[in-house]
């Protein structure tokens, strides 16, 4: 028999208590991992932002449009590679609750600026040629059971009217960080309709997104573009795509901070659950620890016995919690695909969960270890547990 075997023997003393504690730890780790995943999902847009992509919006507000003529001027700025532009279209597809991004874009440059949206050259070609053509993400196609050639009728709100789009292709994300829930359609189709109905709104775009040759040139390029339109009818605000996306998240900052806080409160609960079990177990065994000390066990041996038990419980509970998180995240990800297009457990969340499990195991045993090692043998032998 080794000392570690004694640790396992001790674990089996109160099977119900052991079971409940492990479940308690598992639930705490599950809740922690889930909350962290929600927070991460919120920031998915920031994480997915390409580091060479830059966004120019109206300096006053994102909702004000920019003239299409800016495209050529932006493209001429040294360091700018490909320029794409968008109009937020939205509208209603099927019913109001069916949310996914619907945007008009430049079909010529969209796939160059967003290389993470993978499709074939034929689709790109068709996207350019088809007046009312649209391309949708694979996740969206799966959810609505849509295929190439299908029509997508959308009732406009920002741009009133009945719009009918033809699906000319389906793109796939390059990796898990890529959003597969976009619907982008030919900007020319939107512009033609607006020109006919609301001429003053025509030849304007919502924002420009462009790539820059060298990342270190981004501040200089951004400044140059903003300088360029400083005295124009619409001043610009140019920033990295990550900063642009971050701007949207900042609006939900308080909610995210609260979620983050709650996730750490859960770590505290985890400590209490485990700490309570360890304190109870150690108190019941005071006399046994005294006997072990009498026959020559040192403080180090007792530390191994008590902390080992605590760490095993926390690791097993943590592992169960993490294992349960995967199917749950997959289920939630599917159910909330439109709200959280990217809903995956981040490696950092996993590392945090493992670390906190281990941390809880060590901290929860700290007091029982202290008590057992500092206790005098004589007092321990007198203890009635």
């Amino acid at each position: 028999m080794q000392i570690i075997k004694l640790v396992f023997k001790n674990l089996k003393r109160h099977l119900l208590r052991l079971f409940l504690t492990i479940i308690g730890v598992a639930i705490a780790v599950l809740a922690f991992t889930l909350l962290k995943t929600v927070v991460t999902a919120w920031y998915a847009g920031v994480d997915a932002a390409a580091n060479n992509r830059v966004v120019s919006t109206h300096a006053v507000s994102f909702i004000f449009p920019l003239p299409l003529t800016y495209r050529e001027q932006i493209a001429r700025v040294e360091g700018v590679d490909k320029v794409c532009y968008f109009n937020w279209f939205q509208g209603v597809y099927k019913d109001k609750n069916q949310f996914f991004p619907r945007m008009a874009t430049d079909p010529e440059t969209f796939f160059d600026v967003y290389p993470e949206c993978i499709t074939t050259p034929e689709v790109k070609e068709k996207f350019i040629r088809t007046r009312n053509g649209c391309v949708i993400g694979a996740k969206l196609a799966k959810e609505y059971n849509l295929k190439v050639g299908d029509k997508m009728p959308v009732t406009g709100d920002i741009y009133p009217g009945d719009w009918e789009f033809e699906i000319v292709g389906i793109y796939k994300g390059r990796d898990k960080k890529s959003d597969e829930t976009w619907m982008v359609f030919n900007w020319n189709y939107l512009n033609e309709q607006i020109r006919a109905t609301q001429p003053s709104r025509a030849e304007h775009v919502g924002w420009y997104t462009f790539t820059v040759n060298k990342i270190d040139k981004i501040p200089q390029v951004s400044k140059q573009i903003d300088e360029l339109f400083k005295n124009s009818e619409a001043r610009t605000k140019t920033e990295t795509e990550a900063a642009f996306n971050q701007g949207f998240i900042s609006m939900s900052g308080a909610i995210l901070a609260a979620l983050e806080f709650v996730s750490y409160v859960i770590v505290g609960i985890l400590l209490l659950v485990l700490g309570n079990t360890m304190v109870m177990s150690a108190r019941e065994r005071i006399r046994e620890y005294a006997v072990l000390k009498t026959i020559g066990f040192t403080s180090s041996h007792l530390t191994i016995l008590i902390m080992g038990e605590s760490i095993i419980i926390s690791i097993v509970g943590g592992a169960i919690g993490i294992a349960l998180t995967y199917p749950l995240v997959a289920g939630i990800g599917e159910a909330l695909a439109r709200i959280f297009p990217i809903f995956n457990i981040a490696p950092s969340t996993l590392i945090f969960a493992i670390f906190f499990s281990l941390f809880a195991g060590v901290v929860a045993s700290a007091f029982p270890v202290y008590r057992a090692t500092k206790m005098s043998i004589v007092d321990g032998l007198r203890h009635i547990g």
Partner: protein
Amino acid sequence: MNNSSTIVSVQNISKSYWREKLEIPVLSNISFDIPDGEFLSLMGPSGSGKTTLLNLIAGIDRPTSGTITVSGNNITSLNETSLAKWRSNNVGFVFQFYNLLPVLTAYENVELPLLLTKLSKKEKKEHVQFALETVGLADRMDHSPKQLSGGQQQRVAIARAIVTDPTLLVADEPTGDLDKHSAEEIMILLERLNSELKKTIIMVTHDPRAAEKAHTTKHLDKGELS
């Protein structure tokens, strides 16, 4: 006062406990020697300090003043770690309430002190089997404490005490929780350990019949030898 036949030398030992700011003297200036191979019983009324004296000799408590030398080692000068190591090599303990670990079998309980040694698995097995055979429980080695009677549990505790082949065996009321028959068996066993295995035994007891088995009896009263 050490000589070749003395295994334990207790010199001017005093011990007091503190309860908040109140000093409670338990032992006062006690001196005596115990020869090697002795079977000594310590008797006295409750609160006379006999268990405290036993604990001091066994190195699980420290005197307020005085020195205790066991087999030439001044154990009062050892630090906690050295004292723990010394206890594991030199002293076997028998408690009134057996103090076996309920989650371990009889075999595993006896093996406990050997976890601190560098003996091979085979050697440990030989030691444990010898100890259990000595106490007559070789056939019960796989039983857990709750599957054993009080007398059997105490015999397992004695096997645990002798498994490391200590020079000194200390027993605190070893028959205090047993019926007459079991108590008789335990005393016979202790006598055998003393006569056959030459263990020096120091036993605290209230029971005059148990004390009769000892070679020498010392009486303590109000912390002093009488």
